């Protein structure tokens, strides 16, 4: 919790969620936790963004959800990527890479 949480560009959160659940199905809390963990605390997504994003992904058909039991027997809703979600992740990665490259070019040009 040393640094303040970073704000995300619109649409980026969806991509990150897709990435997290493409590894293995995960529930909402776990996704938020994983994001915070992997990004070393940079992205501490609050629920107000996380669940609406999950709903948007569901409606686009990029992820699917099912109710399962956690290892200690509680019911939780798990999310996983669909095939089109996996394709979308590839597309987004490429477009993200182009954006980063674009941003870098612009910033480099300034110096």
């Amino acid at each position, binding site marked *: 919790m040393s640094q303040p949480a970073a704000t995300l560009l619109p649409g980026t959160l969806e991509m990150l969620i897709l990435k997290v659940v493409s590894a293995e199905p995960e529930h909402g809390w776990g996704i938020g936790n994983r994001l915070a963990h992997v990004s070393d605390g940079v992205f501490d997504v*609050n*629920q*107000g963004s996380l*669940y609406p994003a999950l709903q948007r992904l569901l409606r686009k058909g990029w992820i699917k959800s099912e*109710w399962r039991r956690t290892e200690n027997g509680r019911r939780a809703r798990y999310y996983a990527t669909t095939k*089109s979600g996996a394709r979308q992740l590839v597309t987004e990665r490429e477009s993200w890479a182009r954006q980063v490259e674009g941003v870098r070019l612009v910033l480099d040009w300034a110096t």
Partner: protein
Amino acid sequence: MSWLDGLREKLRPLRDRMGLQSELDDEMAFHFEREVESNIGAGMDPRAAIRAARRRMGGAFIPAESIRGMWKGYGLGGLGQELRLAVRRLRRRPGFTVVATLTLALGIGANAAIFSLVRGVLIRPLPYEQPDGLAFIWSPERDTETHLSAKEWLEYRAALETFDDLATYTDFETSLTRDAEPERVRAAAVTPNTFPILGVRPLHGRLFRDEEDVSGVGTVVILSYELWQRRYGGDETVVGRTITANGVSANVVGILPSGFRLPLDYRLERPTELFTTSGIDPTSNLAWGNRGWFVFGRLASGVTPALATAEVRTVSSRWIEEGFVPETVGATDREALSVSDLLLAGMRTPLLVLMGAVGFILLIACANVAHLLLARSEARRGEVAVAAALGASRGRLARQHLIENGLLATLGAIVGVGLATIGLKLAVGMAPVALIRMRDVALDGTVLAFAAALTIGTTLIAGLAPALRLTRIPLTAAMGNVRGSGGGGRGPVRRSLVAIESALAVILVIGAALLGRSFIELSQIEVGFESSNVLAGGLTVAAAGYPDPEDVGSFFRDLTERVGRLPGVEAAAAVRKIPLGESIGSWTITLEEPLPDPDENVEPDWQIVTAGYFDVMRVDIREGRALTSDDRAGGVPVAVISGAMADRYWPGESAIGKRFQLGTLDQPMIEIVGVAHDVTHNSLLEDPRHEMYLSHEQWPEMQGAGGGARRTMALLVRTRGDPMASLAAVRGEVAAIDPSMPLANPQPLSIITGGALAEQKFTAGVFGLFAGLALLLAAIGLYGVTAYATSRRTNEIGIRIALGADRRNVAGLVVKEAIAVAGIGVIVGGIAAAWLTRFLETQLYGVSPLDTGTFVAVPAILLGVAALAAYVPARRAARIDPVTALRSEG
């Protein structure tokens, strides 16, 4: 596929808004829990952890609100919102829902079916006017028919003040000819006051007039509704016409309403269908001892059967004092027996035992469902505690819970009523004659109300306790316990449920096992004859066409010879009374060599047979010979006697060549030519009887001068295949000799004799079914309770294994505990069963109500079920990687 899934997801807000909302609520609750847990894990105390989580979730439901916003425009859930939520919840746990519904359905269904039976048979009044006031004058042996003489009826009628009026009737069979195919029907000669006493009014025409009682006998008749419909097509103009019964013209004066039966007809498969008057002439010199009449009447108002019995006995003892009636008749033992006692007393115990049995089944079902609900509420503690913490009112939570349980119970009731309908149809199909009133039993409004009451009761009992418990959980306790070692899995409530279920199941299964064993014992009784592949039918040779005894003799001789020559027929014979079909009576005889005790009466059953009877029935001749076609009128009168009779009177010597006479007067001596193996005649439960087989053609002479022929006989035809396949050919032979002669009630002999076991079969069958059900429910219950309790102990098992416990020992420990709990129930159940089985005693044969084998085997089997139910989940738990098990410790 994924495209379709996407589409479904897109359209979901449209079709399943409630579902989405409830899913979202669950999801938020889960998120909140994890947040709290994670805070606690980070070292916060529970209170602070909850506060922090709430703060972080930013007003908790804001995300949910904003997501709901995304569904907007798809319409709102209207009324019955909670109901739909409950439906949704049940659908999400299909396993739970199906098991709970079926369990309730079986319990409610079995109860509704048996309640219908009890109501239809025991509670529903007999269809007479004030049936409670009707009583027969009967002997203390209720199962044997009590015949009185017409003279005794007249005297009782004049003397008894405890009766308003007494009627009498006697039954016989008659042949209807003309109008249609010849047909034999049951008939009764009744005094004209019979119908008014029963409170029956004619559907058409009129009843008998008093003056017709003597003059009208055989010439005025009343038809039953069923005979009128069947034979006369329901034609009203039959009233006033003449029909021909037993070759005599009779005038039809009335038709009775549909469904009418004389009281004693409730013991018979075929009711009386033709009624004529009694012909009792009070002015004539009636014999006191000519007994062949049933006497019944209406008790004076306020008179109990016991009071009337006292007066009957007083009057009877006066007759004995005055020498009208010999003491041996037992007139002073006679009682006034209410019609309902006479007809139903024998069925009361079995039916009430059944009712008790299904009550147990319902209790087991309730215990199962209560446990299921308890287990569920345990699993939902955290979720509910969170909802309560977030502001859901406790009343609302309890209401939701009750609605859900009510829904379950309603589902159970609907399926249960369906099961009851099917079960009742099956039971009615199996109904023995003694339960003839069952034939028209159906589920009705009362029974449905009964099922509904059961449902409500079940919901309240099984659902209320968990609901209350659920709403009272303090949040912190719930949050703490969610990750706990599952102590709730071994709670006293759950343990007593297992014990109670085991006890109930032991009682039921022991009862069923005892009945099943009696059934097997009964089936193994040697009857002494072979009933398969024999066709049986009744024949009566009317005096009109066959005036002399020789005519009757040659009719049966010709007929059995002709039928015996038919293709597919092995042999044919005629007999007076079919074993296990009709009761046989005894005849006092005098042996040629006097007995040591001159006062001893020799009273063998009298059986009249034609030659070939022993072949047709495959009754073995132990010694000497069978009766043959050479034993005719004019020859030496001969008899075959039963082994039991030979052993009784001629022990250690041969009975062959010994002689006796019927009665003590001028009857000719009859020579014993053969000894036959014993045949079970009246009941499977009696000892072998003394029996004499006399030749049909010699019978008239045997009775002494002027003896008449035996005119009503049963024709028995042994066939090579299905007996009914020969029916048409047999009928053809009867018609070839006499076209106006009907063959009464033709059916396979095995059906007639099979009826001897009908009651036992019924009780054992129904009980067996319920016991199977109880065992199934108890097994499900035991398995469910034990498996759940074990799964709650996963953590503990993990710790034990991590600390070095042997996996097999851990599983063994769980199994041992389950057996201990079930064992308590089994012991209690065994003790209760030892007390309760006495009510089964009258239904048992060849097995004691405290049969050791049964009382050992049944508890052992149930303990085995309990052990298995514990072993499967215990082994699964013991196999868990301890790390996984411990991680759930959080």
